[in-house]
């Protein structure tokens, strides 16, 4: 199978609206290992789809090298890269039946009819499409079309599968189901998969490793667990996790952080790490799930407490989201569904500083 490598890859476009050049990807370097499931995630316009299209050969990079399986493929035509791609809108040929859609690529490669039939039947079987082979795409539901698009990739038996936001046109329920099927498919095929999405939940559930991008720059490449626990900067910290991480303006005072009129204590074993920032403005990051209603604070240190004025409470059933203000910033706390906090209350919250993240105020990098 295949590995993929980017060596300092840059892509610039002519900006048709404003004139001049627009840089979609800035000197990206990374390696995707054989059989790995890697997800590119980021807000729209971050360069993730452009990166995927460069792997496919649908866009040519302006600078740098792209290697598939150790071979430089900079000018290699898409059809010669041994890749298959699933598009956001599925891109099924509307004038062809499903079986023609599935076999079109193989026919172009001049494979014998018996082999084509065998592969189409196999893919149709795997995806439960066997009874639909004579239909046209417009006679099928969104979920079925999605399967055909995946099937078209499977029949090619490629080294690399590329997925460009394949689930974004499905409704929420179907999306969860397809997500599970894709994970199973990856196991069964044992192929390298590169998957692009703007949905961090999809990224966290599917990816073995995740590439977080923003404005053409790679922010961090790490496993889902690592991204959640040790985000490299404020962008990643804010992007991964739902609701997003809270940020507080803070000043480091010895082993304490001054946040507004609160004083929060830093865990003793980490105080030494931050001595260089003593007396300086920094940013404290704390996830909503690490701010607890004191009545439900089990198994965590409870010495960092504060009373706040609650502005809004949203009831989600299993949990409640409580909004309050610290300084200018709106803070979210995710508390247990049984919590009785309501709008206008002034309850006491426990801040679990074992889970704190500290960021440099100017570089926004983790410290």
């Amino acid at each position, binding site marked *: 199978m295949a590995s993929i490598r980017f060596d300092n890859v840059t892509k610039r476009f002519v900006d048709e609206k404003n004139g001049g050049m627009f840089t979609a990807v800035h000197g990206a370097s990374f390696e995707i290992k054989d059989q790995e499931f890697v997800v590119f995630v980021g807000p729209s316009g971050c360069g993730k789809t452009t990166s995927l299209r460069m792997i496919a050969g*649908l866009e040519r990079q302006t600078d740098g090298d792209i290697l598939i399986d150790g071979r430089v493929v900079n000018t290699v035509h898409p059809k010669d890269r041994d*890749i*298959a*791609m699933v*598009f956001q809108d599925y*891109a099924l040929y509307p004038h062809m039946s499903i079986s023609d859609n599935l076999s079109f690529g193989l026919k*172009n490669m001049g494979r014998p009819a018996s082999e084509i039939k065998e592969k189409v039947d196999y893919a149709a079987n795997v995806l439960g499409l066997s009874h639909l082979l004579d239909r046209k795409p417009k006679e099928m539901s969104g979920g079925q079309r999605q399967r055909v698009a995946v099937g078209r990739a499977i029949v090619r038996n490629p080294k690399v599968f590329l997925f460009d936001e394949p689930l974004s046109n499905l409704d929420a329920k179907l999306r969860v189901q397809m997500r599970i099927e894709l994970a199973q498919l990856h196991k069964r095929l044992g192929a390298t998969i590169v998957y692009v999405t703007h949905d961090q939940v999809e990224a966290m559930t599917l990816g073995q490793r995740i590439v977080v991008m923003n404005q053409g720059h790679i922010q961090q490449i790490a496993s889902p667990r690592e991204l959640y626990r040790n985000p490299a900067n404020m962008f990643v910290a804010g992007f991964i996790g739902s609701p997003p991480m809270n940020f507080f303006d803070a000043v480091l005072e010895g082993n304490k952080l001054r946040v507004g009129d609160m004083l929060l204590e830093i865990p003793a074993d980490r105080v030494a790490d931050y001595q260089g920032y003593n007396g300086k403005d920094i940013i404290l990051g704390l996830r909503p799930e690490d701010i607890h209603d004191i009545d439900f604070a089990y198994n965590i240190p409870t010495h960092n407490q504060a009373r706040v004025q609650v502005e809004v409470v949203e009831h989600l059933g299993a949990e409640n989201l409580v909004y309050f203000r610290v300084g200018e910033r709106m803070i979210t706390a995710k508390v247990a569904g049984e919590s009785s906090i309501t709008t206008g209350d002034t309850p006491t919250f426990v801040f679990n500083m074992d889970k704190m993240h500290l960021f440099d105020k100017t570089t926004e990098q983790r410290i």
Partner: protein
Amino acid sequence: MAEIRTADTQMSTAALQKRESKRTVWRVISYVILSFWVLVTIIPMYWMVVTSFRDIGFSATFTPEWFPSSFSIATYIRFFTKTDAVQWLINSLFVSGVITLSNVLFASLAGYAFAKLRFPGRNMIFWVLLATMMIPAQATLIPIYIMVVNVFNLADTYIAVMLPFLVTVGNIFLMKQYMSTLPSTLIDAARIDGCSEFKIFRKVIMPISKPGVAVLAIFTFVSTWNEFFWPFLVTNSSGMRTIQVGLATFKFAETVDYGGLMAGSVIAALPMIVLFFSLQRYFLQGITIGAVKG
């Protein structure tokens, strides 16, 4: 909605009735105007057909009839025997057919390239082509005529009649507009599926562009069939004329034969009328493709 609104804009029954009768009056007036205008538009054509089936001979004066008192195809026989009308029809059919095919092929290719392919100079070339639509035919006509007739020595040939119309900028623009609406991912998918660029065009783009191509073909065929000036300039012998040119020359040769003229007019118009009624949907929808839209 209705219940809610009546609450604050309470209208008396009288006012409502007044409004309703005002609406009815307006409706009647609008139908009267429309019917009148349709009649005036259609009557000349009706009259053309009715008169073509009357044998009025060569009398310069006669009374127009609304309902034909007699039926005769003598005028048609006269028109066909006196002229090369059969040959004119064949010429028109051939010329319009070739020009239509050529426009379908080349306008689609170019429209596709301008809509979906990226290459240096694309926008500049397209805008230069588009700007030439502003240049009136008269400004280029004389040099083209001299080039075709005197330099290439093509007077009185099919090639001369067809050459300037093989692909028009208007058609390229129409196809570009149409093809811009096709999803680009289909082209990407075809590339990954191993199609050459031409194969993408042939196997993916053309099959899904059928509605646009149909519109282009119909409008090109009709406008070529009806074209008068250019074929009139470059044809000399009767055997090379198109039906429109032939009909015009017949008018000057036989000024008093109104019956023959009307028969000829019917013959020239009939194929287009049949085409229009059988493909009405494409005609009526097709006009809006390409024209305005931002």
